[in-house]
């Protein structure tokens, strides 16, 4: 699938000079999408993507092939975290503590009702707001899985955690999302 901003098609005929551009630029939309979901701001996301692409070019000689999208997104994610830390370090730290203690089944939910939640999901703006309300680590995992359609392995690479953590984060993200929507619906 073509996901570039320009609609340009990159191919092998470009020669070695274009190698970095051919690897990186097709993922510009994915890079921006992730940066925007992580930072919550278009302007900040643009800065993050520019910075990340410059870093990626620097690291490019050590890129050994494989999934180039995961490689780029990993750099984008780390760059975004740097920007977030500078902006609101306290919040990241607070969430990290929560993450340590949380287990999969720690989200009790007697009123959970997926059917009711589905009704709340009809409005795109509401969905965006619900995703934005998720803790950073859960949000990024969900976005990488459902919007970027990365495999567990690739998500583990991008977010620098074991696959088991990806799986539990993914579940908690989904569960939280559905629960938030259901609660909203019963208000």
């Amino acid at each position, binding site marked *: 699938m073509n996901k570039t901003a320009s609609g340009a098609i990159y191919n092998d005929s470009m020669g070695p000079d274009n190698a970095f551009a051919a690897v990186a630029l097709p993922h510009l939309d994915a890079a921006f999408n992730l940066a925007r979901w992580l930072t919550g701001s278009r302007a900040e996301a643009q800065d993050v993507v520019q910075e990340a692409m410059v870093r990626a070019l620097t690291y490019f000689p050590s890129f050994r092939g494989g999934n180039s999208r995961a490689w780029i997104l990993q750099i984008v994610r780390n760059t975004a975290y740097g920007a977030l830390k500078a902006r609101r370090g306290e919040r990241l730290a607070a969430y990290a503590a929560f993450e340590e203690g949380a287990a999969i089944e720690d989200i009790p*939910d007697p009123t959970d009702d997926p059917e009711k939640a589905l009704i709340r999901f009809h409005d795109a703006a509401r969905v965006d707001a619900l995703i934005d309300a998720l803790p950073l680590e859960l949000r990024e995992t969900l976005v990488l899985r459902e919007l970027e359609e990365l495999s567990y392995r690739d998500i583990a690479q991008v977010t620098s955690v074991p696959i088991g953590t990806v799986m539990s984060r993914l579940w908690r993200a989904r569960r939280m999302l559905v629960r938030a929507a259901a609660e909203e619906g019963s208000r």
Partner: protein
Amino acid sequence: MSTGDCGKLLLLQAELDGELDAAQAAALAEHRAGCPECRRNEAAILAARQALRRATYHRADPKLLAAVTGRLAAIPAPPGRRMAFPWRGLSTFGAGAALAAAIILTVLPPGNRGGVAALVDDHVRALQPGHLLDVVSTNQHTVKPWFDGRLDFAPPVRDLAAEGFPLVGGRLDYLLGRTAAVLVYSHGKHVIELFVWPASGRDALPARAARNGYNVAHWRANGMSFAAVSDLDPAGLEAFVRDWRQGP
């Protein structure tokens, strides 16, 4: 209080995410058939998935692409490596078009030059070798709607087949810091590209420039800037411009 986990929760989720192989999936299927927790959790996962389908996918805009390529181009190549960013590898025609962009600088009034931006745009174009056409059509009624939604302006599209310049298609390109519509015409073995982008200045009659065998004509009309570029001889290009300005 339900914990929602029958012990197979993450396995079920992996199955719904397409992460299980056939043997694992078959093993799970037996359990799943009789497990109310699994049914509930599956509904929750699918509800979340449906929600994400409505979520916004934030796409990069062309300005970001231009900014990124500009930043990359400004980085000097490390020793032992050839240029980190492409000036070369252009198709023959792409090289002509890039050259044309530089030439156009010379026919624009100083206020409109934006030389740095044009250099960036050359880079962007250089990434699109052999990328002459995004939409192939000899029908202006196909080409015009194709531009709608891809641009923040509506370029006039004309077919000049009767005058000997049939429209063969169109594409988007970058010129002077913004997106331009490019209409592609043919004339015998020659290709004529007409760049169109919104203009801020007053109407201006066609001005000609030439370099390395390429001829360029630039004019402004009705709030649009036009630049026709071709390896056609000056008289041929002049005829094209005249016919285009007169309309079909």
